């Protein structure tokens, strides 16, 4: 008997039949009859422990005294029912003894605090004065807490769906590779790691300096591969009155307005010839066709000589410089320079134009993304959250995928459905109970998110990243000292998870019925 109960637990065939059962009504007898792996199930919705569910069903089938309720099998088999042949169960007094430790703890540590917090939230910071609902009013009128709520909203909308979609993609992709086990272990591993350690890990990942943070190291090297020639930091005109161009608000502009048919010279200095991109060609005067403004941007510097403001033989043009034709303060046309530094504005309306090289040409090289700044802090922390939870979603969804009856898929294929149609119309609907479980679990998690925000957001940007759970701690313990407002925030958090409480209860009742 022990073997029978323990045995099926060992192979991890979990969820195989379970999800199918969840999706289609009634247990699939053939799957269960394959014994071994198939008899072990775990239902992601997790209301009855299905492993023994099956054992119980099997037992009832062979025992004539089994009450009819059990003989029907399925989830109902797990429902406890006492047979007709005299109730041998213990008296309720013994039950009290078994339940007492749990109920003392649950009562004093969980239920009583809920009641206490409701009352406490109606009093002021010190608890001396009754203030009615004004703590709740403060939550919804203070701009700090409002942005906290907005951040939580972003979390709830973005993170659970991303985790679920990513888990689905991983589960589908790993179905056919040989090293699926290794992949799953790698992706699943962060679940064992504390959120604090994850936070430290991602503080390192998000370091601003591309020589320290791996995220910016990757981004800057990718950026440099595709856009290495875009910037000329340090390039500038000569600072004298003979120079045809001058600096104005960081941009380089022509001193004299140019008419159609005229040529504009843009000689620049301030950078080394070696720093030019390898594609740069010798600078050539650009001949302006009628009705055209043309010109050349080049490095007007020859080591040991050369004429100022003239293109000497060895001087090279600056490729890919953005050039604007400006008239009356408005940009009329934009172009970029050729490898020899020349540019042409064709088809400009008659008039005089100022040629301008905007500041973006001369900015410092790309130094990566400011992950931990006020603008990106919440997306950055959501990234860490996804890193932690994608494995959870993947494992649950993979269990669901493997439980989908092959027949249904094959039938659809024989009927001529494309793979995408099969996936969209059959797999996804059959998976939907599992997807819903993942989504709901993640929503509850994001509502309560605390550690990651607390650890990853540097102190100065923490107000920008703040979430309700963190604000509750800050207000009550982290220096705020306002336990009235803290209690109100805790109750607010509880109210937010109430719908999921209801979902759990309903799901349990349905499975028991």
């Amino acid at each position, binding site marked *: 008997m022990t073997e029978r109960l323990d045995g099926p637990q060992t192979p991890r065939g979990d969820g195989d039949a379970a999800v199918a059962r969840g999706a289609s009504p009634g247990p699939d007898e053939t799957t269960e009859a394959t014994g*071994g792996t198939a008899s072990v199930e*775990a239902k992601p919705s997790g209301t*009855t422990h299905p492993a023994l569910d099956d054992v119980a069903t099997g037992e009832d089938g062979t025992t004539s005294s089994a009450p009819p309720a059990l003989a029907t099998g399925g989830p109902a088999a797990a429902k*406890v029912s006492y047979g007709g042949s005299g109730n041998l169960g213990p008296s309720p007094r013994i039950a009290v003894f078994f*339940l007492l430790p749990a109920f003392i703890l649950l009562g004093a540590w969980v239920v009583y605090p809920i009641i*206490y917090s409701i009352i406490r939230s109606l009093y002021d910071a010190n608890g001396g004065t009754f203030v009615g609902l004004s703590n709740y009013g403060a939550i919804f009128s203070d701009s700090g807490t409002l942005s906290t709520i907005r951040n939580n909203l972003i979390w709830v909308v973005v993170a659970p769906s991303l985790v679920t979609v990513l888990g689905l993609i991983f589960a589908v992709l790993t179905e056919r590779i040989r090293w699926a086990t290794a992949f799953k272990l790698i992706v699943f591993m962060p679940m064992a790691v504390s959120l604090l350690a994850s936070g430290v890990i991602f503080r390192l990942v998000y370091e601003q300096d*591309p020589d320290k943070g791996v995220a910016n190291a990757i981004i800057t090297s990718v950026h440099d591969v595709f856009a290495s020639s875009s910037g000329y930091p340090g390039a500038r005109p000569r600072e004298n009155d003979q120079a045809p161009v001058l600096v104005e608000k960081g941009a380089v502009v022509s001193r004299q307005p140019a008419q159609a048919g005229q040529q504009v010279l843009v000689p620049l200095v301030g950078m080394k010839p070696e720093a030019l991109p390898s594609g740069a060609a010798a600078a050539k005067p650009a001949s302006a066709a009628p009705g055209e403004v043309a010109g050349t941007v080049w490095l007007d510097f020859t080591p040991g000589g050369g004429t100022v403001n003239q293109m000497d033989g060895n001087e090279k043009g600056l490729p890919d410089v953005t050039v604007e034709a400006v008239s009356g303060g408005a940009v009329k046309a934009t172009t970029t320079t050729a490898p020899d530094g020349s540019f042409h504005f064709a088809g400009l309306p008659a008039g005089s134009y100022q040629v301008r090289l905007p500041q973006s040409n001369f900015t410092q090289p790309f130094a990566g993304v400011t992950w931990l700044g006020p603008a990106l802090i919440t997306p950055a922390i959501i990234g860490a959250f996804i890193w932690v939870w994608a494995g959870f979603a993947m494992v649950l969804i993979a269990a669901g995928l493997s439980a989908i009856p092959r027949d249904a898929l094959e039938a659809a294929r024989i009927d001529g459905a494309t793979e995408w149609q099969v996936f969209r119309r059959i797999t996804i609907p059959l998976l939907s109970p599992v997807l819903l479980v993942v989504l709901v679990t993640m929503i509850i998690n994001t509502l309560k998110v605390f550690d990651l925000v607390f650890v990853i957001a540097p102190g100065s940007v923490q107000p920008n990243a703040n979430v309700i759970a963190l604000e509750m701690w800050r207000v009550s313990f982290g220096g705020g000292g306002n*336990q009235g407002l803290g209690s109100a925030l805790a109750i607010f958090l509880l109210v937010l998870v109430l719908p999921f*409480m209801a979902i759990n209860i309903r799901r349990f009742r349905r499975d028991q019925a």
Partner: protein
Amino acid sequence: MTTLTASQPATAGSAGAPKRGVLSRVVDKLGGGLVQIVLIVLALFWLLPTLGLLVVSLRGDTDNNSSGWWTFFTKPAQLTFENYSNLLASGFTSSFWNTVAITVPATVLVIGIAAMAGYAFAWMEFPGRDGLFLVVIALLVVPIQIALIPIAKMYGFLGIFGSIPGVVLFHVAFGLPFAIFLLRNFFAGIPKELLEAARMDGAAEWKIFATVVFPLAKPAVASLGIFQFLWVWNDLLVALVFADTDAQPMTKALQSQMRQFGTNVDILAPGAFLSLIIPLVLFFSFQRYFVQGLLAGSVK
């Protein structure tokens, strides 16, 4: 078959047709190589952050300030255990033992108390049983924030604020709903003939629980145990509120260093890595139970 993927191929043979993924067949036609590459890149994305922490923890301060950790691929000589020996000499070990002193009792107590309650819910009849169990299910999702202020008050009154027992009891109480839920469902599946036979023999209820039911529940207890262990070991918030400096676990000790993140990576990185070694070892040894627990009750 003891690994995560065991869920996949086992049934394929018995089902007749070869098991085929859905999208994977599309992807097959595009070339399996692409999938391999994508998955390798993804695996790197998941691996690199932790690897980075490990390498950073093994590099000297000057190295960490001047170059990226990935330079160790070309210059492995820069690795040193200096950070670890400094950390262990600095008294970090006491927070390690605090973590152990909090986690082990909190795990054992939850299993014991929840097993008793789960047994009562599964196999005893008493008035209001179903209603009470629904209450337990309702408590599954209650955020711990709700209890921080009231329990801090209560601990102050009892004189255990800041102490390890206070932290343990808090973890036990908030671990109970999930534990009772999981074990009750497992117990409910035990064939009732087994219990009836024992009861017919006149065995005391306590004895049936301890000698018949509880031993059968080993897999469920293992799942629950590893979950509770990881949950408590990795907790920060409860420790932040209820553990004072003498009782603080590793998470709180490390958190107090976060403010000077830039300057004390040599403490944070090895500390964070030490704190995650035991969970990782547990995870790799018992991941089967971990996944089972996950599938059995992903509601918390």
